[in-house]
């Protein structure tokens, strides 16, 4: 069970608890409204019902934007109604506002909704605190404490997005939990004398508790099964990637050897006929479907690069494959070069009657284009790392325009297992603060040294959505059952109440 899902489930249960507390408060207010029948009381009912709606939508994590917007509207509307109610209710003196609470709001403008909510909550806290002080209403103590914690909780929510999970997230949810408990204890003090409501609420709470437990158990089992399955599949896919790279290496070596036997190349090289050599190598590049083609002289200087004609005259004799070729042997390896960067490179000597003329280097760059072609086949986000730096990838940055390359893999577990021990690893991880399952495999060069790694990753969004959908369904069913059962229980409690009286 990865941390991400665990926290997702905690979030779910906590928000449902909040919904329950708001429901009780709304209920009590509604009871008061039946007796008083004025707008003031009904504003409190509406306020808490709105908060209840927000809590449910917030808990279920709907993917739809419209529902979330409705949720936020209910959230802010609810706060506004409660604020109105509490301002109008303080009979002694209308409170004076102070600008203390505006400071945190101005520092973080990223999440305007949460900021407004924080301001709303803080005002409620402040006013109820004033009321508590001025009117010596002891019963208000848990109320303002509850809203104080809710304020702090919503303040922390300004600093995290729902995608990223961090210590701030945990602190925020803890604060919320305390807030809900304080509010529950406030409402409980009113309930103690009313047996009917008490019974009903106990019934509802237990039903909800059961619903939460059942849906969480289900989704947990589901998630862990889905996850193991995805991991297995992913590892297979990553092994296919490994094979693909091996195949490319063999292909490069075979083609280098083949090209080295061509007499026309040797002739043109001997005659220093570079114009014809350019034409020929261009054709070869196209016909043989090579990633790149380099012709070197016997000292290792680049005579021409068929794929980049303007770049030549540099010396490549310090490269492993070239070194071997200039010594008369063919070799394929994976290494970095100034022009082609990190690539599969095969070199073969150009010999003219036992005499070394130069060498041919050919192969395939391990670049974005290669990653793209792999993604076309596997459908997985593919990345290639040189040591621990991502040099090519199919994943784009959040702006959707640029690739997220140049980033270091900092997860010690990955670098330790893959780069140092040379084993593959499959794990749940976050990439750009989204949950992914990723496989990493080492890339080895001709000398069996680990020069990098290749990774295939699959977003866990699907799994998360399935889990949330199960939660939603279970909860909805339980609520329907509850509504059906609530009626007979309501009548029974009413009779009980009458008989006790």
């Amino acid at each position: 069970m990865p941390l991400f899902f665990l926290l997702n489930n905690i979030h779910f249960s906590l928000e449902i608890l909040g919904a329950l507390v708001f429901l009780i408060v709304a209920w009590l207010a509604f009871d008061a409204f039946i007796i008083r029948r004025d707008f003031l009381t009904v504003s409190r009912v509406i306020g808490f019902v709105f908060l209840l709606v927000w809590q449910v939508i917030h808990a279920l994590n709907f993917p739809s934007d419209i529902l979330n917007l409705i949720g936020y509207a209910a959230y802010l509307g609810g706060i506004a109604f409660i604020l109105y109610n509490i301002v109008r209710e303080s009979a002694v003196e209308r409170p004076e506002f102070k600008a203390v609470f505006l400071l945190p709001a101005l520092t973080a403008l990223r999440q305007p909704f949460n900021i407004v909510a924080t301001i709303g909550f803080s005002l409620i806290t402040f006013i109820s605190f004033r009321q508590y002080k001025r009117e010596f209403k002891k019963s208000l103590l848990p109320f303002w404490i509850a809203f104080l914690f809710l304020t702090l909780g919503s303040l922390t929510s300004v600093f995290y997005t729902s995608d990223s999970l961090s210590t701030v997230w945990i602190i925020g949810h803890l604060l919320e939990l305390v807030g809900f408990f304080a509010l529950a204890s406030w409402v409980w003090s009113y309930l103690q004398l009313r047996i009917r409501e008490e019974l009903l609420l106990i019934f509802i709470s237990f039903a909800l508790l059961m619903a939460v437990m059942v849906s969480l158990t289900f989704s947990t089992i589901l998630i862990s099964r889905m996850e193991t399955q995805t991991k297995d599949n992913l590892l297979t896919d990553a092994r296919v990637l490994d094979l693909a790279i091996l195949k490319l290496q063999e292909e490069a070596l075979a083609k280098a050897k083949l090209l080295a036997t061509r007499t026309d190349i040797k002739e043109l090289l001997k005659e220093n006929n570079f114009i014809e050599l350019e034409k020929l190598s261009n054709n070869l590049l196209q016909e043989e479907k090579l990633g790149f083609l380099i012709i070197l002289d016997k000292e290792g200087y680049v005579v021409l690069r068929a794929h980049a004609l303007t770049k030549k005259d540099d010396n490549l004799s310090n490269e492993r494959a070239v070194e071997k070729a200039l010594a008369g042997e063919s070799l394929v390896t994976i290494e970095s070069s100034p022009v082609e960067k990190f690539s599969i490179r095969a070199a073969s000597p150009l010999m003219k009657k036992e005499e070394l003329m130069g060498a041919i280097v050919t192969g395939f760059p391990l670049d974005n284009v290669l990653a793209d072609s792999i993604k076309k086949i596997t459908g997985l986000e593919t990345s290639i790392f040189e040591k621990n730096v991502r040099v090519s990838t199919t994943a784009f940055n959040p702006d959707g325009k640029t690739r997220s390359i140049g980033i270091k893999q900092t997860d010690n577990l990955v670098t330790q297992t893959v780069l140092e021990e040379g084993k593959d690893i499959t794990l749940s991880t976050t990439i750009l603060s989204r949950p992914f399952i990723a496989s990493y495999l080492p890339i080895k060069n001709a000398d069996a040294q680990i020069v990098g790694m290749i990774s295939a990753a699959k977003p866990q969004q699907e799994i998360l959505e399935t889990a949330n959908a199960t939660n939603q369904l279970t909860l909805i069913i339980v609520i329907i059952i509850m509504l059906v059962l609530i009626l007979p229980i309501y009548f029974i409690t009413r009779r009980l109440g009458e008989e006790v009286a």
Partner: protein
Amino acid sequence: MKFRNYTKWGLIILLIAGFGIFLLNIIGKSFIQEIVQEVAIETAEGKVFGINIGQEAPHWELLDLDGNTIILSDFLGKPFILTFWTTWNSMSADQIKIFDEYLSQNEKGIFEIVSINNQEDKSIVLNFIQRGGYQVPVLLDETGKVGELYKVRTLPITYFLDKDGIVQDVFAGALSQEMLTEKVQKIIH
């Protein structure tokens, strides 16, 4: 008493300012985007990067990777997107990948995407397209004449043409999937 009045007004002003910033944050973004796009297209008498919006796209005749001659009027009758790129400009090479993903995810046949490679050897372009398995149609502007005709100064640059070949929109720089979808919606309707 007076002091309290000040604080009260101060608070009101702060609240209004806060609310204003909040509103700007939500609504303002759409305005800002519009403005930036307008500026990008309209400066220097409406001709920064290329052809005026509303003008007819210049005619061309180019070879594709299979050696067939393709002319602009082959595409008339459907809205289409014309993008200029090279393999060595990583931003425009990535643009090909973005177009490719767009093509694989969206309904085909409503509009066409054509990419014109600017002054590169066929072998290099073919190599790039084949290795990546990209489905975007490529035409070769080996002499750079068409690029000159369309006043290509930056890469990538993308023209959105309607079914009659009239330029409806120009965008200099990389287009993300989202921006592409948005712009395509505009030229289709």
